[in-house]
């Protein structure tokens, strides 16, 4: 059976008629053609490549029905850049530290870590590794990912101090 949805993704509202059983990840990829969010494990929720942010919290979009997120804010990897083509500091760090090879897991990791760094701005290596439990990478062995996250954390911390934001 179909249902009508009105879903805000990256600040833009989309109205569609979709099967009630449609998962959010498929809505993003097939309905909205936002194919940056990936399906890495046949929806078993083990790989994390489908991670997006829902109302600012990282969640796996294969675990949500699209019809559940009407009236909420979804942010995907396409919405991570700072606008005008300026990459997010995390994206710059990932590039600089060779933290991606095939890139399949990368959007899910970025959307997870971007939120993680807001909650834990000065994480230890152990905390970063723990934050990545829900994201599988088959290429990199994670070490460059860790370095990129540490690098981005330092950059974001210092720019936060410079602008005087935060208590």
């Amino acid at each position, binding site marked *: 059976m179909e249902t009508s949805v009105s879903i805000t993704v990256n600040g833009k509202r989309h109205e569609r008629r979709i099967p009630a*059983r449609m998962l959010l990840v498929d809505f993003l990829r097939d309905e909205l053609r936002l194919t940056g969010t990936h399906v890495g494990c046949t929806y078993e929720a083990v790989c994390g490549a489908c991670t997006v942010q829902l109302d600012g919290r990282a969640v796996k979009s294969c675990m949500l029905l699209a019809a559940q997120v009407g009236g909420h804010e979804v942010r995907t990897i396409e919405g991570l850049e700072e606008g005008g083509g300026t990459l997010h500091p995390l994206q710059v760090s990932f590039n600089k530290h060779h933290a991606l090879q095939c890139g399949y897991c990368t959007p899910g990791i970025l959307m997870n870590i971007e939120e993680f760094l807001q909650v834990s701005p000065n994480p230890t290596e152990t905390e970063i590794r723990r934050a990545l439990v829900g994201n599988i990478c088959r290429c990199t062995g994670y070490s460059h990912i860790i370095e990129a996250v540490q690098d981005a954390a330092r950059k974001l911390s210092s720019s936060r101090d410079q602008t005087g934001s935060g208590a």
Partner: protein
Amino acid sequence: MYPSDIARIVSPRTIADALQELDPVEDAVFLAGGMSLMQAVKSRLIKPDIVVNLNEIEELAGIRSEESGLFIGACTRYVDVAQLVSTTISLAALSDAAKCVGDRQVRNRGTLGGSLCWNYHSACCPCASLVLDAQLTLSSLSESGQRVDRNVAISEFLTGVLETARRPEELLTSIFFPRPAHRSGSAYKKWGLQTDALPVVGVAAAVTLDARGAVISARLAMTGLMNGTQRYPEAEAALVGSRDAGESVAAIDLLKERALVHSDGSASAEYRKHLIGRLARQVIDHAFARATEQD
């Protein structure tokens, strides 16, 4: 892994509306965080016609602290339970558990109520809740359409693996954790195949000490075994009178003896027993330490 056809998804805004949605319909499921339910739906273990989405009901989430204890809305996310409960040291087993479920994406979405209602054989929050004597409030509609609340002790709520005392027409709305007596401490720890993975074995302990530091009340529970989340009353009795974790050997031996261990791809029966011994020692130590921290 793909859901079968779903006829309708409804998103009520209040508990009363949610109960109305469920009332006339047979093949409806309540969807909270969905971290367990959606797995069952995607694997077609469950084929719901109607999905009642609970995530729009504001009154179902949140934590209220009273002198008597903490009232936690059933739809409160693990991440929020972990953060807000962590300041109440005596209830630390609950924040220990909520902090280590799955992964951070799961903790951002999964709920305490969902965990208790699902009652998977291998689950952290039911185990921690069991040693903390949680009381569950189940709501339903009377014949005349009035909301009726029923309180059930967690030990009576968790009836078996994937089974609870919740009736089909009932919605779990709130979980109450009584504030333990002075000099109480609790802890939860698990071992799984990866970090934060499903517990192969998880152990929870809660103790209350008297003025001399001896145990006057103990709760011990385990999860991950074939018979699911259980308390072990004989082991609890053996812990009473212990003046430090070092005197807990008898209790730990009883846990190992009474545990329904088995061998499978995750661990041999022998290794499960070994894990029980190690984890039980650690959580009992930790519970003691937290109990005396408040002095």
